[in-house]
């Protein structure tokens, strides 16, 4: 029997980037296939090729053995492929039925009217066949996110989809809704549908999929059976062993506690607890690293520390003061520097030149802007000093930020933040998407700061980077620190286990942890209670 989907040597190049490099993928009919990888590994690009949004640079797409070349999603839909995007394509004020039938409305009276009763009946029938719980008459804006997702799936099924692609389907769901989704997937495959499901969460891939293909840097690094693989194997495949950047971080004198967090709880934009009771402290002269697969609460934690998001519980202290609700401006003025994870979104104003970008964050300072007036001569000098010191190319302060390469943009941000004379540097993925030379440069500068007694909070999903730079290393998993370890005495395999959420202790005899672990058994229990409470809340929400 020919496989439902067969991608053969798919390569997709964008100007300057190879998003997919010779990827082969075979998905059998009636199975769930997970496509696993870090952000930017090329999962979504690959699926957009299958869905006809992108034309592959080379390679062929086969469905049931037949080669296809899709010009548009329309072609893919006609060939029986449906895609459920991460952002739902639904019209909020219209009803479930109206959304499902949109564009393919059943008609009556020679097309003069929509057959509303017929449409409703078709939707009810379809929902019944797959055991979906949806109210055909509810407006989209009034139903839960989980139900919206079911509507999206029904929309694809209504159009005759045999193969469903789900892009990060669990990202917007509560744990309970995730369970419901997985039941839905089981029902769909039982009835012969094929499902490809994009995710970066190991646990979900193992739970929901029959087979898992791992992508890294645009290449497929392996396909494994979900039943026989382990989370560690997957974590290793995903993160990989990158070229070892030789980082000799030596040891430094650690000083006083500069910043600390206690029992911090942060909710993300959807109101899900992204950070669930995290405590740590960072001392002067030390790099405190946070490792983990993306999306385990690191971003929200960093936002809470830097003042971009208000924690829902807990306390954040900086230089002895409670800054839990302090503004960005107060934190900057107290000596907190921040290298954001998305440099184009938060680090720079792309339309500004480097002189103006160099001023960002100092616009209230006495140095460059005394009495509310910007001293442009000094500001220019400041930008030129950064460019010079941090080797930003081209060395032109009048260049627009958008004209710089990613690595140079990052060096400029790093320079601007490090030159603040900070007490604490919060560096979030400081070398993401940066060339090797710049990576080394940024690493050196970070270690220099540490030498000067600055506290560094480093978040990175690159295992080598956090291991090499950190003095103490916390591993984040589902909003908690699984453990805090001494990176020098912890192997990559052990870290892989931790990143997969396996707690230390038990029969391993947990003796390897050199650092002070903040997450004891008591915390774990509490976390479980919290999780249970969350589920109960979600259930309440469902009833309401």
């Amino acid at each position, binding site marked *: 029997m020919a496989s439902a989907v067969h991608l053969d040597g798919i390569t997709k190049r964008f100007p300057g980037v190879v998003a997919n490099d010779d990827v082969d993928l075979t998905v059998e009919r009636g199975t769930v296939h997970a496509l696993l990888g870090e952000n930017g590994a090329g999962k979504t690009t690959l699926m957009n090729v299958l869905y006809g949004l992108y034309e592959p640079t080379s390679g062929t797409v086969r469905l049931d053995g037949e080669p296809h070349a899709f010009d548009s999603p329309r072609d893919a839909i006609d060939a029986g492929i449906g895609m459920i995007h991460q952002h739902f394509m639904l019209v909020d004020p219209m009803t479930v039925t109206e959304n499902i039938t949109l564009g393919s409305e059943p008609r009556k009276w020679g097309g003069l009217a929509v057959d*509303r009763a017929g449409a409703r009946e078709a939707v009810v029938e379809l929902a019944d066949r797959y055991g979906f719980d949806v109210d055909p008459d509810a407006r989209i804006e009034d139903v839960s996110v989980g139900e919206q997702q079911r509507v999206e799936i029904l929309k694809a099924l209504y159009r005759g989809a045999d193969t469903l692609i789900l892009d990060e389907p669990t990202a917007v769901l509560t744990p309970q809704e995730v369970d419901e989704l997985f039941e839905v997937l089981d029902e769909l495959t039982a009835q012969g549908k094929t499902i490809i499901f994009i995710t970066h969460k190991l646990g979900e891939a193992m739970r929901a999929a029959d087979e898992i293909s791992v992508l890294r840097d645009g290449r497929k690094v392996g396909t494994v059976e979900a039943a026989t693989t382990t989370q560690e194997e997957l974590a290793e495949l995903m993160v990989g062993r990158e070229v070892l950047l030789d980082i000799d971080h030596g040891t430094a004198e650690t000083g006083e506690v500069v910043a600390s967090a206690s029992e911090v709880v942060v909710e993300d934009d959807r109101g899900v607890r992204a950070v669930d009771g995290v405590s740590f402290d960072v001392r002067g002269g030390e790099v405190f690293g946070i490792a983990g697969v993306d999306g385990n609460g690191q971003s929200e934690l960093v936002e809470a520390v830097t003042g971009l998001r208000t924690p829902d519980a807990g306390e954040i202290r900086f230089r002895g003061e409670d800054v839990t609700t302090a503004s960005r401006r107060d934190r900057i003025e107290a000596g907190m520097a921040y290298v954001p994870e998305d440099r184009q979104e938060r680090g720079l104003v792309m339309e500004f030149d480097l002189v103006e970008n160099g001023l960002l964050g100092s616009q209230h300072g006495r140095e460059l802007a005394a009495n509310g007036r910007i001293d442009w001569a000094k500001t220019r000098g400041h930008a030129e000093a950064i460019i010079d010191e941090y080797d930003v190319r081209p060395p032109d302060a009048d260049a627009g930020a958008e004209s710089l390469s990613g690595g140079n943009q990052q060096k400029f941000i790093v320079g601007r933040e490090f030159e603040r004379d900070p007490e604490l540097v919060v560096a979030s993925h400081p070398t993401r998407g940066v060339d090797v030379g710049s990576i080394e440069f940024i690493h050196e500068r970070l270690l220099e700061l540490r030498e000067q007694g600055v506290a560094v909070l480093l978040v990175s999903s690159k295992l080598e980077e956090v291991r090499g730079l950190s003095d103490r290393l916390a591993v984040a998993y589902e909003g908690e620190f699984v453990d805090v370890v001494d990176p020098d005495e912890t192997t990559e395999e052990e870290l892989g286990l931790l990143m997969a959420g396996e707690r230390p202790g038990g029969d391993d005899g947990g003796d390897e942890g050199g650092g002070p672990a903040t997450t004891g058994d008591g915390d774990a229990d509490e976390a479980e209670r919290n999780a249970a409470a969350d589920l109960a809340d979600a259930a309440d*929400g469902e009833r309401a």
Partner: protein
Amino acid sequence: MSDAPADGADADADIAAGNDESGSFFDRYTTRALVAGATVAAVVALLLAGLLFPDSLAGTLADALTSENTLAAALRLSVPIAFAALGGIFAEKSGVINIGLEGLLIISAFSAIYVADLTGGVWVGFAGGVVASTLLAALFAVVTIGFRADQIIAGLAVWLIALGLAPFASQVIYGSPNTPTVATSPSITVPVLADLPFFGALFSASPSVYLLFAAVAGSWYVFERTAFGRWIRASGENPKALDTAGVSVTRVRYAAVLISGVLAGMGGAALSLDLGQFTGNGPTMVNGKGFIAIVAYLFGNYNPVGAFLSTMLFAGLDAVQTVLQLQGIGIPRQLIRITPFVIVIVVLALVGRTRLPEAAGEHYETEE
């Protein structure tokens, strides 16, 4: 509005958002119900007072209100505004804000007279007005949809082009910004019903009034019952959803803007043909009716029937004022004329929360 579902993952947030949602939902409708209820109550109270004290101010007002002339005048005033409002609904629901309705009214008002003058046929003139307005709307569509120009600026351009072009054409052709008069079409009178007190005005009116009733009903039908109406709504709310469903957003929007040209054209042609003349001095005879139309459909919450009723309310105020003036009680016309705008500011800003289509004013481009 659309934030609520996105927020909804956490139960507490969900419930809170849900309450908030239903709160504003209620607000939306209770406010309108309140306005309607207060209007009815005021009218009833006034009529009662008028009955009891026929010689008082209330009595005069009650007389003015119940006069058949008032309803007739209100209907006549409503025609161009309501047609333009219907056109505005089509365009804006599809995601294209058409603030050039005023310009469409002006160009069709002049063209209708010109064509009627040339051919001698009232209905040929009417068709001429519709064609002129549709052509201008087509230009607007090409500029905003095809070339992705800013809709507000392009809409203002439509107004200014028409405001300059129509009186200029009249000047060139007739030597004056005002055209000579042409024949008007007689009223259509339904026997017996036309003799009803007060409501008789509904059955003895110019043909354009009946055409308007048909247009209101037709528009309602299109939005509520046809697939095309749904596509227009989807195109204005979430064009991407429509696009992925395999319907061309561009085509839907072109169609919607052209329909708005046709409807506004009917309004403009009816306006000038009703008087048999186009007057082009100052703001021309259209004199802001296109802008009141925008207010009317916002107040009517994009519902064709609601827009028509709002138009009647505004036109009714104007008509009452005219009747009162004839009876020697002068409320300055200017005050009456600003009421729609005051009402819409209050409604939009303070209480009503008319919900604009999510993607109104935004360009859409298929990503391929």
